[in-house]
């Protein structure tokens, strides 16, 4: 490890990777999507005109190949009877809702699907709620027109997923989630050095543990801050005492106390030993706090409290191309900063001690 800190290649690599992340993360466009459908509710046995708003769409250029459906499930789909394109991001679709639905629910939700040759296919789940006063499953299945949704166009080129409410902020995945993963790696390394110190009392292990904990705390603090900024515009508030926000704050406060603890021991050997034990405890507390507790109860945060995990469905292969390099980039940059802190501690020690740390 200590031979490596004088080398520059991995530092430059971290910087280059992060530059790639910034450029790709910001410039790859979002997949065309549907931002709004009005009205969002109707009744059976009615003719309705839905006003649909798109994002990154080219409805006007694709007028001839526009197709719109409302979809209950793979079996029951209804095509629009008339489509009027109002602009690149605005289109009206007329539907004839039959008297009965092939469903035994009083209020049935439908997704809206749009397809054209330029934008490909886009779907908005739960776009339309249809209330039926008289439920007759058999009648509903009989009168359903059973349109087909076939030959959906494939969009060419790399795009990031479009999600309701998130919009462009999905890019924050590269700048918020990646910080947390990098922090986990850094805290793991810090714990390893604490364990090393307890086994063989070499000062440099203690310096490394302190340096890595400092950087880990920086990453965690930035993660909390970036999460709060993201939450302000998606959840409605910077801080909602959401379980994930709360337990993560506790975990970071435990790590912050590590430095307070260090200060309270004037004797260096004692300081190093006690802080090594505390560091291990802090890491052991980190796992249940950040990963276990938030999953046990209600939460706004993706992946916790019954929400679908952001990882499986939303982190598709295009996002992975930028996300994993981001984690590596932040980790390398953090190691660089930690190495600078470590070298400073070694120099400080040389200034104050008779026996300096040997690399």
């Amino acid at each position, binding site marked *: 490890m200590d031979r490596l800190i*004088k080398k520059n290649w991995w*530092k430059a690599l971290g*910087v280059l990777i*992060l*530059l790639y992340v*910034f*450029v790709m993360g*910001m*410039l790859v*466009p*979002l997949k065309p999507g549907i*931002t709004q459908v009005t009205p969002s509710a109707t009744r059976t046995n009615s003719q309705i005109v839905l006003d649909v*708003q798109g*994002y*990154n769409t080219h409805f006007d250029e694709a007028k001839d190949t526009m197709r719109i459906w409302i979809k209950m499930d793979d079996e029951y789909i209804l095509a629009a009877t008339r489509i009027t394109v109002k602009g*690149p*991001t605005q289109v009206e679709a007329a539907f004839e809702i039959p008297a009965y639905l092939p469903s035994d629910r009083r209020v049935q939700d439908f997704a809206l699907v749009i397809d054209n040759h330029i934008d490909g296919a886009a779907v908005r789940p739960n776009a339309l709620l249809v209330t039926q006063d008289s439920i007759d499953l058999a009648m509903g299945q009989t009168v359903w027109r059973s349109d087909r949704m076939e030959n959906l166009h494939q969009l060419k080129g790399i795009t990031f997923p479009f999600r309701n409410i998130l919009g*462009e902020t999905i890019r924050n995945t590269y700048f918020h989630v990646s910080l947390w993963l990098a922090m986990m790696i850094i805290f793991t390394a810090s714990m390893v050095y604490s364990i090393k110190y307890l086994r063989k009392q070499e000062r440099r292990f203690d310096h490394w543990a302190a340096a890595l904990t400092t950087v880990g705390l920086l990453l965690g603090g930035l993660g909390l801050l970036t999460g709060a900024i993201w939450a302000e515009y998606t959840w409605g508030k910077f801080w909602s005492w959401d379980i994930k926000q709360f337990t993560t704050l506790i975990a970071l406060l435990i790590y912050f106390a590590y430095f307070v603890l260090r200060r309270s021991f004037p004797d260096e050997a004692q300081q190093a030993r006690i802080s090594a034990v505390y560091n291990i405890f802090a890491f052991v507390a980190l796992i249940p706090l950040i990963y276990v507790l938030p999953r046990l109860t209600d939460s706004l945060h993706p992946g916790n409290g019954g929400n679908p995990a952001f990882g499986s469905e939303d982190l598709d292969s295009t996002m992975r191309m930028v996300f994993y390099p981001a984690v590596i980039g932040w980790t390398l940059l953090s190691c*660089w*900063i930690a190495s*600078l802190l470590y*070298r*400073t501690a*070694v*120099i400080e020690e*040389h200034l104050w001690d008779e026996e*300096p740390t040997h690399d």
Partner: protein
Amino acid sequence: MKVQNWILTALIFFFTLSSATAQSNSGDFMRSMGKMYVVVAVIVAVFMGIVLFLVFLDRRLTKIENQIKDHG
């Protein structure tokens, strides 16, 4: 120091204003790629500034370490 603060405040105010008008001029929901390149350039500039500072710190520490090695 006071003068610098005022200049900085004025610059930030100016840029905020001009970017606000720029948004209302484009008018549509489509993201204009031209403006996005500007955002990327800004992010890269800020990041490279921080990186160059880290390089400077790195070099300074190396100098001190070499001094210690030579003179103890």
